[in-house]
């Protein structure tokens, strides 16, 4: 039985494609974007998250951890030794308030399909379906393919939320089972892309072209995170406009305004590099919208 690693299944999602959907968040991502909204999706391994505001300082977690990986200092501040911790989740199991939460679990294809099937009626009524997101779903190609296939066998609409960063072969193998691509564009310049996401954008651009060449342009919704001071520069937007204007058949791009998730990084003891914390202004969104409309794309804010 094929298995995958996920960190959440969100039912009744309305922002991840048409209609009412179930979104499967798959764990592991080759990119490391500064503004990542789901930093718990980056590592492929299960991780502990600590919600300080829920903690009642009962120290149950300290007592139950078999590896002595948790302690509280004299100021009652909790420390998790991430080196020692193996993600067994025992502490989270015992924590009475769920201040500790283990993100990431192994799921079988069967379990996943059972979960997905629960809302078939809702998909039918609303024109929704299932969205695979993450993380980067293409990191788990075999599981993803089987899961997509299982959906198609049940006549469920599928969407893939992807960074596009994956070997061509993998993309090709899953393509027939994807009804809609939610394809992220970040930085148009290769060096900048490397700086803010950790990888080059070459493959991403090529894969987009490849998808279009396969006649799937109409099944793509581009997604553009509007990150103040990073992606919302004139240089970047114009860079994308130039790139996209050479591609045929694209129809829609959604602008995703930044919001600050520093707290999430903190809960995972991860470094948060963003210096700007506010959302982009209405004006910024407006001019970016107009830029993309200039090349004939329909632009939605929020998506």
């Amino acid at each position, binding site marked *: 039985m094929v298995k995958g690693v996920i960190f959440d299944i969100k039912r009744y999602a*309305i922002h991840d494609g048409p209609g009412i959907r179930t979104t499967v968040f798959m764990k592991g991502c080759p990119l490391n974007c500064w503004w990542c909204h789901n930093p718990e999706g980056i590592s492929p391994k299960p991780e502990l998250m600590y919600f300080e505001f829920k903690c009642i300082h009962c120290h149950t977690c300290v007592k139950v951890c078999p590896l002595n990986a948790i302690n509280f200092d004299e100021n009652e501040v909790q420390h998790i030794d991430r080196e020692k911790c193996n993600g067994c989740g025992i502490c989270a199991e015992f924590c009475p308030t*769920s201040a500790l939460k283990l993100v990431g679990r192994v799921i079988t294809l069967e379990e996943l399909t059972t979960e997905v099937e629960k809302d078939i*009626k809702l998909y039918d009524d*609303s024109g929704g379906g299932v969205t695979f997101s993450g993380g980067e779903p293409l990191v788990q190609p075999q599981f993803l393919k089987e899961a997509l296939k299982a959906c198609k066998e049940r006549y469920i609409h599928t969407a893939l939320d992807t960074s596009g960063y994956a070997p061509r072969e993998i993309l090709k193998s899953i393509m027939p089972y994807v009804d809609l691509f939610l394809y992220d564009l970040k930085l148009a310049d290769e060096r900048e892309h490397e700086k803010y996401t950790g990888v080059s954008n070459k493959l991403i651009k090529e894969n987009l072209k490849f998808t279009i060449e396969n006649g799937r342009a109409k099944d793509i919704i581009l997604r553009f995170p509007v990150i103040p001071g990073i992606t919302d520069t004139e240089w970047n937007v114009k860079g994308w406009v130039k790139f996209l204007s050479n591609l045929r058949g694209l129809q829609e791009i959604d602008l995703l305004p930044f919001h*600050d998730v520093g707290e999430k990084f903190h809960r995972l003891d991860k470094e948060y590099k963003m210096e700007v*914390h*506010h959302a982009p202004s209405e004006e910024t969104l407006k001019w970016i919208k107009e830029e993309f409309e200039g090349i004939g794309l329909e632009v939605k804010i929020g998506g």
Partner: protein
Amino acid sequence: MSENIVSAPGCSAEKQIEKKIEKELKRRKSSIKSINERVAKLRKESVETEVKISSERAKLITEFYKSDLPKGKSIPVQRALAFRYLLEHCSLPIEDGQLIVGLRGTGVKEVPSYPEICVHSMADLEILNSRKNMPYKVDEDTKELYKDKIIPFWKGRAMRDILFENLPQEWIDAYEAGIFTEFMEQRAPGHTAGGERIFKMGILDIKEEIKRKMGELDSSDPEYYEKMEELKAMDIVADAILIYAKRYAEELEKMAEAEEEKDPKRKEELKQMAEICRWVPAHAPRTFWEALQHYWFIHVGVTYETNPWDSFNPGRIDQHLYPFYKKGIEEGRLTREKAKELLQCFWLKFNNQPAVPKVGVTGEESFTYNDFSKLNIGGLTKDGSDGVNEVSYLILEVLSEMRTLQPNTAVQISNKTPDRFLIEALKVVGPGFGEPPFFNFDGVIVKMLRQGKTLEDARTSGCSGCVETGAFGKEAYILTGYFNLPKILEITLNNGVDPRTGKKIGIETGDPRNFKSFDELWDAYIKQVKHFMDIKMKGNDIVEALYAKYLPVPFLSLWIEDCVKNAKDYNGGGARYDTQYIHLVGLGTIADCLAAIKYHVFDKKTFTMSQLLEALKNNFEGYEMMWEILRNPDKTPKFGNNDDYVDEIAKRVVDTVVEIIESYPPTSVRKASRRAYFFPTTCHVYFGKVTGATPDGRKAGFPLSDGVSPVQGMDRKGIAAVFRSVAKCDWDETGGALLNQKLTPDLFDNEENIKKLAQLIRTFFRLGGHHVQFNVISAELLREAQRRPQDFQDLMVRVAGYSDYFVNLPKGLQDEIIARTEQKIF
């Protein structure tokens, strides 16, 4: 992950909240639409006038009963003569600029009292006059009158006194413990709605019917005398309302006369109104205006005869009015604008009649000025086609423009209802004053058919009061009291004893520490439920018999089929269908409690029964860890998250309780079948006060869950998950179930979301949901309103099956509404 994004450092949390509140207030303000000058003036008067008690009715009815007039007459005829006396002598207020006349009482929001049903003590009057929330002002003259005339005469004669005199001690004990309440202790039965008969019949037609029926009565019928007396009473009240209308016509003519130079337009109007009063209610209405005036006379009659629960309502109003509207437009004698203005005037008439004052337990179970008149729109026509018409849309418009406490509405959605109607109605919900609620009309039909109504009678049904399904114009579906499901678990866990008082009011079902399995606990609980249901049902029979004997309502009986035909009173079984309801409270709480015990004590063995009982006894003090686990939805199954573990328990509770209720034989007098509703009005707060700590982690005194909604704050998976959980129960075997949801205002910012919400509602109904209503409001705004009530006088929220001014609610209820989960996702 679906948790909230936390605020950015550097931008303080308070600032963000302030901004959010500001945005929300702006949105609310910008949604207020303009209305014409006449209506604006009437509305202002209606909204701003303070509520007073008017002593006129009490004075008149006391005069009547002290006089020789009732001597030697049968009780129905006495009641009818009293009604005629009232309508002959009452004052005839006319609001300046109104187009519809008639008010029970002496003026706008001047509420009459009904001492023959419940006579208020001097202490009651003091409290009503001076309480901070929801006062009823009582002037010195009224107090005098009560002290000297009203109280001395009615003490011991009022229905309330008669009831308590006749109810057995075990009933009193359970009532005092807060196991159940009694609807009829201060208000008369009613709980019904008008049907087609009202809009097709004039009083003269009905008098004809009565005459015919008298001629047909067979003197060998053992009930000949009772029937004849009832028919005589009906004939007297029919005359009475004609007298009332005639007096109004004369008054209007006098006013028109006096108007002369000042305002020729008003003069014309007054003349026209007088003409209308000379035509209706004597004859069936011919025009839109006449139809509204005709209904209103009847409404005043019904609500002046007694103080019936849920006042009265015109039922499926869009269908009743549509033929008049269509004809008026086609003949060019009516415009859409004029029809709307008339409807707006009509609307304010309801708002000018607040509920009668309620005290004691009744005050707690229904703490509101709202009198629950509910206008149904949408649904199907009697031949089964889509019932939405132009008047349905007009009413939505009027609703969104008027924003008054009363009347309430019900949007009936069937499979055939067009999306446009559903979406337009959702847009009215958006700005957030709680109206309108949504009902599953296909489900309404199934419920009615299950109860044996004909298909046509099912299709002309609707929902009145909060969410109560009934065959409009044809059924007496009497509500008898709320029933506290979690409290009975508390008594089960204490082997029959109420720990609050130490009194043994239940039966001995064993020490729960010895229970080996969840099933043993379940059996014990169900035994206790049956025990208290027995007590309640016996009480119901007594109450019903006493009302049938002492308080017939010949005027209401004129309008509900087949009272005239059967020559029987509405309160005595004259209606085509007779039903009696118990309303169960705290489904979410009881499901969570039972699931918590099953899960932690029997399945996972997290702790033992005796540990749990100790913790409950101590209100979780010293048991903080256990408390955290019990109220943590990750650690304990909670209703409302589409989790079968607990949803199955909720379903089992519903099935079992319904089965118990339906197992009782028909009632004493009306031979009514016994049925269940699931809604609380404000009773979940009162029941919470009398219930100690519960195994779901609820501390002593906190409100129970409302209606069939999940426990406040425990539904974490979005609104669709709530719909799923709720729809697992079989609501078709009940008369209705109320679901409250609170939505974050941002959801209404875009059209796409509204469409998705519409889809979800359809899915919910297809799965079997009965009703859903929304508060579109943030907890932040509500907290702000608690802090600065003076600035939020007009903030309306959805409470149960009605809306109310937030600042008028008692603190416990305000907190309960704030604690409800604010759904940010679907």
